[in-house]
């Protein structure tokens, strides 16, 4: 035995030469005649498909519809100078500048170690930057594309600059500002709602810069994102509460949770949206009525909460009994056990499922088009019907698909980052 041990000491791990690109191709694409055949077949297939698609995109497609209708697609009827009204789109832009500043601050404050997952979370709204940026590109009248491109560059630069300033401040104060960043994140969500919604006098009077813009004017990507974000933010606590309710020892609470979850899961979202848009106001006392957007937000939130509850319950079930016992044994009460021991582990276990559901929720917001809201898909429907741009379905649908894909992918990426960052030490 001793000899084998001493022998092991002398052996070095093999020095692996970095494979060149040619090696990689040889190993992965042409390792055997069968693989070679499959590779050639796949390449041909890709070529055939791409030739058609790219050929269409570069020669036949009428992309003019996109810049012409971009403002509509991004912010819907939100009052802007182009439509001959007082411009309020700057408030949407402001949200983005604040966002850039917070991200910068957080990134700078967290330094290189840890906390990156919260930053990754923030990557999603960063894409919102596209709204004002492309908006300005779109509102320029024909023939001023150079000026538009300049403005676009200026906007991106300004956003980056704000982000950089935030980063420098965060860097300067270091980890002490992490808490500040966390508070800012929590404040950011209501702030966006307030900025987009405004308050006080109606926007048409144009008296104050923060005049209220009614929700029926919200539209396009802005509306889709707000529906999704409101849905995610509010359905999360409701879903967790329902999951705990379903496991409660109190019969009434458990029964109510089960009935709620099973009812919602048994009905399609479209029916619920119709119920919300047609019937909800009947149940309310006279004088109180919600507008369409709020009703859709409520329905999406409640719908998502039921599914979330079941996901979280799955997570709760995989926590071993020993964790509850250990928590009891050191004197933690029921609430403390849930909050400090059980939920952190259960929620971590269901991150992939939960993110999958949030992605589904984001895409499901497109169903509100059916009840007459002009979200991204609803606006796209209107654009396609515009007699000036007949026959542009493919262009418009492809364009909005890119947006859906970008945000869904951002969520999925965020989920993976959260998992890697929380995964430390659990093995």
């Amino acid at each position, binding site marked *: 035995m001793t000899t084998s041990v001493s022998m092991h000491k002398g052996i070095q791990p093999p020095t692996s030469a970095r494979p060149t690109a040619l090696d990689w191709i040889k190993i992965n694409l042409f390792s055997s005649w069968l693989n070679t055949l499959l590779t050639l077949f796949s390449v041909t297939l890709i070529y055939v498909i791409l030739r058609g698609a790219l050929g269409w995109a570069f020669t036949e497609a009428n992309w003019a519809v996109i810049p012409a209708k971009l403002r509509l697609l991004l912010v819907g009827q939100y009052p802007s100078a182009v439509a001959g009204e007082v411009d309020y789109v700057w408030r949407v832009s402001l949200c983005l500048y604040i966002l850039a500043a917070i991200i910068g601050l957080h990134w700078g404050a967290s330094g290189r170690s840890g906390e990156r997952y919260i930053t990754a979370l923030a990557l999603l709204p960063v894409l919102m930057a596209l709204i004002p940026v492309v908006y300005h590109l779109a509102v320029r009248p024909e023939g001023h594309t150079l000026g538009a491109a300049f403005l676009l560059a200026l906007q991106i630069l300004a956003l980056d600059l704000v982000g950089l300033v935030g980063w420098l401040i965060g860097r300067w104060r270091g980890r002490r500002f992490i808490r500040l960043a966390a508070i800012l994140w929590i404040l950011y969500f209501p702030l966006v709602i307030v900025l987009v919604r405004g308050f006080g006098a109606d926007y048409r009077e144009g008296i104050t810069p923060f005049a209220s813009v009614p929700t029926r004017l919200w539209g396009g990507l802005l509306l889709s994102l707000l529906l999704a974000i409101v849905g995610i933010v509010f359905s999360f606590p409701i879903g967790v509460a329902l999951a705990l309710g379903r496991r409660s020892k109190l019969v009434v609470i458990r029964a109510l949770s089960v009935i709620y979850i099973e009812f919602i899961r048994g009905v399609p979202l479209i029916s619920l949206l119709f119920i919300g848009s047609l019937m909800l106001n009947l149940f309310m006392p006279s004088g109180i009525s919600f507008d369409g957007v709020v009703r859709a937000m409520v329905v999406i939130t409640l719908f998502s909460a039921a599914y979330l509850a079941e996901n979280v319950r799955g997570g709760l079930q995989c926590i071993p009994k*020993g964790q509850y016992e250990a928590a009891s044994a050191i004197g933690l009460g029921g609430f403390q056990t849930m909050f400090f021991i059980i939920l952190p*582990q259960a929620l971590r276990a269901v991150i992939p499922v939960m993110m999958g559901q949030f992605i589904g929720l984001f895409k499901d917001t497109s169903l509100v088009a059916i009840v007459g809201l002009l979200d991204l898909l609803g606006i796209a429907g209107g654009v396609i019907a515009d007699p000036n741009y007949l026959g542009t379905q493919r262009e418009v649908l492809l364009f909005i698909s890119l947006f859906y894909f970008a945000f869904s992918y951002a969520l999925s990426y965020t989920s993976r980052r959260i998992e890697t960052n929380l995964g430390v030490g659990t093995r």
Partner: protein
Amino acid sequence: MTSSNGDPMIIAQDVHKWYGNFHALRGISMEVKKGEVVVIFGPSGSGKSTFIRTINRLEHHEKGKIVVDGIELNADMHNIEAIRMETGMVFQQFNLFPHLTVMQNIMLAPIQVRKKSKAEAQEKAMELLERVEIPEQALKYPGQLSGGQQQRVAIARALAMEPKIMLFDEPTSALDPEMIKEVLDVMTELAKSGMTMVVVSHEMGFARAVAQRMYFFDEGLIVESGSPDEIFHAPQEDRTKLFLSQILKH
């Protein structure tokens, strides 16, 4: 300190427990004095784990009386909190919280339950980690430690609440042989410091060295009890002799 040496810390009188129709504890009576170390052993299914778990009310006894440090255990919820603050428990499977670091595992209850300041809890936690001889592991997660190290963290976590009684439920049964010693060393040191301990274990060497009394459980009853000397050298019951011969053979 309200109780002096010799005062009973745990009194159990005719304790019964059923799981459905299965009569798990069939009348256990026992008294543990302050500073005493008691070892409970017996075959699996004999009720020894069930009994030790009734002492901090992880299991509810259905008949009989248990008094811990002058407080009787019953359905009154306030009692349970009080008892659990006085008794630390160490489990066979460690049951550390995998999402918290070693330090956080130890500090959680003192901060949340005893309402200590963070600095105070931190100081105490570090002191305990020194005591169980793994201060260098403070910032690691349980999953990064060996079984023996995890069990020592579990002991430190229980001690952080400054309990008057420590309960050990087969603390070394899930450990590799070479790790058993490091845990037993910590337990021996603890026993010498005057802690009242109830230990369910088959570590006979440990029992011989530190236990004042030993109890042999079988089928929910105490078959025999006595000092380690009496149990090892002059067991009265055939069942005890048979069991001892089996576990001491190798």
